Every structure is written in C-alpha cells, then in structure tokens.
C-alpha cells in the first residue's frame, strides 16, 4: 500500500484530508509542521506528501526545499495544499519542487483529481 504524509498544523485538516486520502487506498501518516515532517521522511520516505504552507517551526516551503535535498527526497510526489492561492505563491511552490497545488478549501473530488494529475490514482 502506498503511503501519504499529511503535513498541516490543523488537526481538523489532517483528519479531513486523511479520510479522503485513505479512501484512495493510501496508508496515512501525519505531521504537525515541517520539522516533524522532515524527521518522519528521514525514517521512511512516503510516496506522496500533502503539504500546508503556513506552519510554525518550519513552514511548508522550507520543508519542501529541505526534503528535496534529502537522499530519496526527489522520490515523493509533493502536493502543496494552501490558502495562499495567488499566482505568485503557486509559482513559487512549483519552482521549489512541488508537483501539484491544491487551493484550500478542497473537497474529495479535487484531491482525487490532483492525485491523478501526478499519477497516484
């Protein structure tokens, strides 16, 4: 079974996204910020990372740049998931190594569609 790491400081978002992604046949892991996520990736690199932007300790963009420098860090598909939905933010996320971008709020169809875009479903 493929694994998905959901990185968001909101417990509600982690639960909602986790339920949707679990229905797509992924095993779910959660992290509360970028630093927590980086530690989890060093233990086991997931197949996909659903990543919030604004988080304490280490934000999504810093995590994204850091994880892409890790051994096997190029492997996971990284789907940014943020309320920062202007063109500049989206472009910066893609330039920093994100594969897809979900604008919050989202629904199950959107997540499924974005996972399909990166070849995960």
């Amino acid at each position, binding site marked *: 079974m493929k694994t998905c790491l959901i990185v968001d400081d909101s417990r509600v978002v982690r639960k909602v996204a986790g339920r949707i992604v679990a229905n797509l046949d992924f095993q779910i892991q959660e992290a509360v910020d970028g630093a927590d996520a980086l530690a989890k990736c060093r233990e086991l690199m997931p197949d996909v990372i659903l990543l919030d932007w604004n988080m304490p300790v280490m934000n999504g963009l810093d995590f994204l740049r850091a994880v892409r420098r890790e051994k096997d860090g190029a492997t996971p598909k990284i789907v940014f998931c943020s309320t920062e939905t202007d063109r500049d933010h989206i472009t910066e996320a893609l330039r920093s190594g994100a594969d*897809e971008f979900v*604008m919050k709020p989202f629904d199950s169809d*959107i997540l499924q569609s974005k996972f399909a*875009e990166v070849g995960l479903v």
Partner: protein
Amino acid sequence: MQEATFAALADLALSKTGQYISPSKSYLVETRLSSILRREGFASCDDLVACMKARPNPIFETEVTAALQTHQTSFFRCRDDLGRLVSDVIPHKLKRSKAGRLKVLCAGVSTGQEAYSLAILLNEHAQALRGARIDITATDICKQSLTTARAGTYGHFDIQHGLSVHRLLQHFTQLETGQWQASEELRRGIGFRQHNLLDEDAPLGQFDIILCRHVLSGMSKSMRQRAAELLTAKMASESVIILGHGETLTGVTSWLEPSRRHRGAWMYVPEGQRKVA
C-alpha cells in the same frame, strides 16, 4: 413537493430535453430550482408549477427546463478518451481532409469545461497538428451556463476539478475576485451557441467530429434515440460521434454503429445498411 408537481416538472424536462428524472430523485428538482424559486419569490415548487399553469410563459418555461438539467461537468473528464481524440481521431481526420481544416461540435457542454479542455489539448498538440485549423462549436440548452462558458471564468472549486496546476498557470489568468479566466486565445477559439439537441430546425451546420459525452445517458431511451438520430444530420461525410466512457447506442438506434478504427467513436450507417435496433 406534491406528486402532481413533480410529475409536471418531470414531464416538462422529458418533453423539452429528453431528460428522464426518476421519482426517487425529486430532491434534485427542488435543489436545481432553488435559485429560481428564491429570485421569483415562490415559497415552493408547488407554487411555481401553479403559476406556470395559470400564466403560461414560454421563456420562463425554457428557463425552468434548463435549470432542471444536470450541470455536472469538469475539466478533462475521462481524460484518456480526450487524449485519444487529439492523438488519434483528429490526426486521422486531418489526413483525409483536403482543406486541412476540421469542425468539431461539443454538444451539451454546460459551463464549458469540456470545450476548454479540448482547446487546451489542441494548443498543446499544435506542433503535431501542423497548424491545422480546428473550429470548435460548443452548445448547451442553458443560457445561464453558456454565460459562464463564454466568460471562461471559474471559481475556486470548478477550476480545480480536473485541471492540473501547470495547465491552470499556462492557460488561465487570475482575476482580482480570485476567480480564474481562460486565456483570450482559448476563448476566441470556441464559438458558444444555445442549442437543444432535440431541436430539429436549429441550423448548426455539419461537423467532422461530434463530442456528446455524458449527455445522452441522462435521457429516456426514446429521446436518446431521437437525439442521436438528429445528431446524424450534423455529421459531415465520414464524421464520428464520440460518446462518454461507458455510454452506448447499441439497442438504441440502428443509425449509428461503433467505429472499428476509433474506440468510443460511432459512425453513421446509411439507410439500407441498418440492422434492426
């Protein structure tokens, strides 16, 4: 909603557009008419139907009929089928076209995502298609949906259904409202027209390829047959109709048969060669 009210609205949808609404879906009727009820100040569908009977108004009737339609659509719906259309069907048709020009009809496009998806794919395959001219005409019965389609402007949820972020940035502009608008090039390449598939007289012209995906399946069998047979009048020589994934006309009409060359495409069968449906 009273049974008689549902029956009246279901009959209206069936007679005007061929759409079959099952009694178990009566909740859909209330949902789809809610904005008209609010705008016109009707307390319920019962009041709406009573008013339509007391003061018949063909324009209002058309609006109610259009509102009863399903408007469900998304970008790149059944993307593999769309991909085959651009990589296989269109190049094949172009080879056989002396003028190097094709006319494509997207029937029942609702708010336009199907037509824009095709336009995006044609843009991405422009080099392989060697500058061939491909005209897209997109139709729907609903005037309000077509207003959205012509503007090419989509909100937060609609823009994310089926569209990759890369295509979003390449082909859409973000407006100050936060909505996203299709590029002028995409909008200019599509002619939107209000059209009812069951209207025999509307002069749309003839097309080399007709996309009619996820439209006929919502109709009753007899109306599906009528709509499919009326579509054949819009087929140019050797043209094909592309249906949605899983949709079929087998057992519905003998006027069309599956193409042997293009999966999911249907060809016209001349009179005299038709098998009994």
